């Protein structure tokens, strides 16, 4: 499998997709409004998160229910450095926000999240399945609770109030927080963020594809398929698993930093268990271990709730003449139904990898053969 093949047809296809992705925010902004471009921005963040989690869950087969903790680590690092919080909390030490450039904070966030990934991975090396899930779940909650309570004795995270006034990212001297005029075209902040996020998402995809197609990617899948045999093949399962945890967390850290700069505000509430479950749903629903499937899952699941929120009221008006159920509550119900239906009828995910699909088909065919 070669994800970046140089066939002319594939190249033309990629060019088309690239063009579509470039025009998308302009079209969306002009037709249905900039709030939808904002939703696209979040979809890109979720793609990064899902691809990061996919390394741990999809490739290496290690169930992680606390993944959002790494997102939180990246977000808080960015927030603390790019906001006046430090200057307010420790006026004796900091005169103003350190305000480091984004090309320094993002890699730092990645590094810090990656270290936390290894930290989480280390005690779980001998665990699998449900036990691993419980430990990672606990880890995710610990990080959230720490963020919630680290406002005393030293105010590091500002506790439940969160950190405000985070400066938006500056790329090449250009603040993404202010609209830009380009060739007579007004590019609002959300669109600028879109292009910045898109570039980093493409980088994440590139890294994922390269890793999957390597000695390391094969070792991850080998561990997922049969850990004992993987060890007998000479794979140092401890190191390779820690690498999966660390690299997966890295992407979460980057996405977190982007989130903080984009949102301008972070609080522990944004990093609850439900968010971890959401990202896991994206990976599973899209097709575990299959990069295009995971991307599809992330985009669909981040857009679907918004589409439901937007469409539920007019649709009811049309069908019943009045709004029977509050769109906000209906949204979650429909979301749940959609998840159940997909898992019932496409257990390997919406877009599983070819080999995995065949495997599931074979399992389903087997009882039929015997009958």
């Amino acid at each position: 499998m070669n994800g970046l093949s140089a066939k002319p047809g594939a190249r033309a296809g990629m060019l088309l997709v690239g063009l579509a992705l470039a025009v998308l925010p302009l079209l969306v902004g002009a037709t249905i409004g900039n709030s939808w471009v904002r939703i696209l921005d979040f979809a890109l963040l979720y793609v990064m998160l899902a691809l990061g989690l996919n390394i741990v869950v999809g490739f290496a087969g290690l169930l992680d229910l606390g993944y959002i903790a790494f997102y939180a680590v990246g977000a808080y690092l960015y927030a603390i450095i790019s906001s006046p919080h430090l200057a307010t909390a420790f006026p004796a030490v900091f005169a103003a926000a350190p305000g480091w450039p984004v090309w320094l904070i993002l890699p730092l966030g990645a590094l810090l999240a990656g270290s936390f990934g290894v930290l989480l991975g280390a005690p779980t090396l001998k665990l699998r399945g449900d036990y691993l899930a419980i430990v990672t779940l606990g880890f995710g909650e610990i990080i959230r609770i720490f963020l919630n309570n680290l406002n005393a004795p030293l105010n590091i995270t500002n506790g439940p109030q969160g950190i405000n006034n985070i400066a938006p990212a500056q790329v090449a001297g250009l603040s993404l927080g202010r609209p830009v005029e380009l060739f007579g075209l007004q590019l609002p902040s959300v669109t600028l963020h879109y292009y910045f996020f898109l570039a980093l998402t493409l980088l994440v995809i590139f890294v994922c594809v390269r890793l999957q197609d390597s000695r390391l990617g094969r070792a991850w899948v080998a561990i997922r398929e049969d850990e004992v045999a993987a060890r007998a093949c000479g794979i140092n399962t401890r190191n390779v698993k820690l690498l999966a945890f660390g690299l997966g967390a890295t992407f979460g850290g980057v996405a977190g930093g982007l989130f903080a700069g984009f949102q301008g505000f972070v609080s522990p509430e944004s990093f609850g268990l439900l968010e971890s479950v959401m990202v896991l749903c994206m990976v599973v629903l899209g097709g575990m271990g299959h990069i295009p499937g995971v991307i599809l899952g992330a985009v669909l699941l981040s857009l679907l709730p918004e589409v439901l929120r937007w469409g539920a009221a007019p649709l009811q008006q049309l069908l019943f003449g009045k709004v029977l159920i509050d769109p906000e509550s209906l949204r979650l119900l429909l979301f749940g139904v959609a998840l159940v239906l997909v898992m019932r009828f496409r257990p390997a995910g919406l877009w599983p990898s070819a080999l995995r699909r065949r495997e599931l088909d074979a399992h389903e065919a087997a009882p039929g053969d015997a009958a």
Partner: protein
Amino acid sequence: MSADILLAARGIGKRFGGVQALHDVAVTIRRGEVYGLIGPNGAGKTSFFNVLTGLYSADEGSVLFDGAALPLGAPHRIAGAGIARTFQNIRLFGAMSALENVMVGRHIRLRTGVFGAILRTPAARAEEAATVERARQLLDYVGIGRLAGQQATHLSYGDQRRLEIARALASEPKLLALDEPAAGMNATETAGLRALLEKLRGDGLTVLLIEHDVKLVMGLCDRVAVLDYGEKIAEDVPAVVRGDPRVIAAYLGTEAA
């Protein structure tokens, strides 16, 4: 220790709770021979095998392999030292193709790390191409070259055995350890397996064979050891072992006194 001895296990002991699975087992395997290990059910064959390949740690004893102490209890380091194994109940990487399974087998001989993989450096590229090439050769060698692209779980039983052997060979072992390779095979498949093992011996590989099929062991092995209740009761050429009264007693039981 003479140069023609590849592996020398001394005083290997292993307990599971109150059960003494292995007691003071000593085994020497010479370079280039096919060494058989047989014994009745529960004699400790697989336990010994798992100690040798690092899956279990030994409670007592040590193993000298190719002039150095074997790092017991660390399977990946033992694989690196040059012992490759197959499993009694075949353990392949089911979702991967046959070719990929063999490529995983080469893991320990490859160097590419995270950055090499992401940047796809010339060294990483060359290594990857060589790995594919070598994996194809090995699949041809064991006779399933045409199945390279097939998913491992879709191969027939006999072919899965061959694939497991190819995967083990990929690590360039000095000793190939096979855990009951003929288990569950029909007569034709066993004959095919035997031909493959003869070929391996012909190419100078040292083989440790644990087997239930006494006929296969007696016909193929240069020397045979017999385990019974966790102890070695005989070790010699097949013709001598076959006539050993203790071996006969172990397999058939002693007459009531």
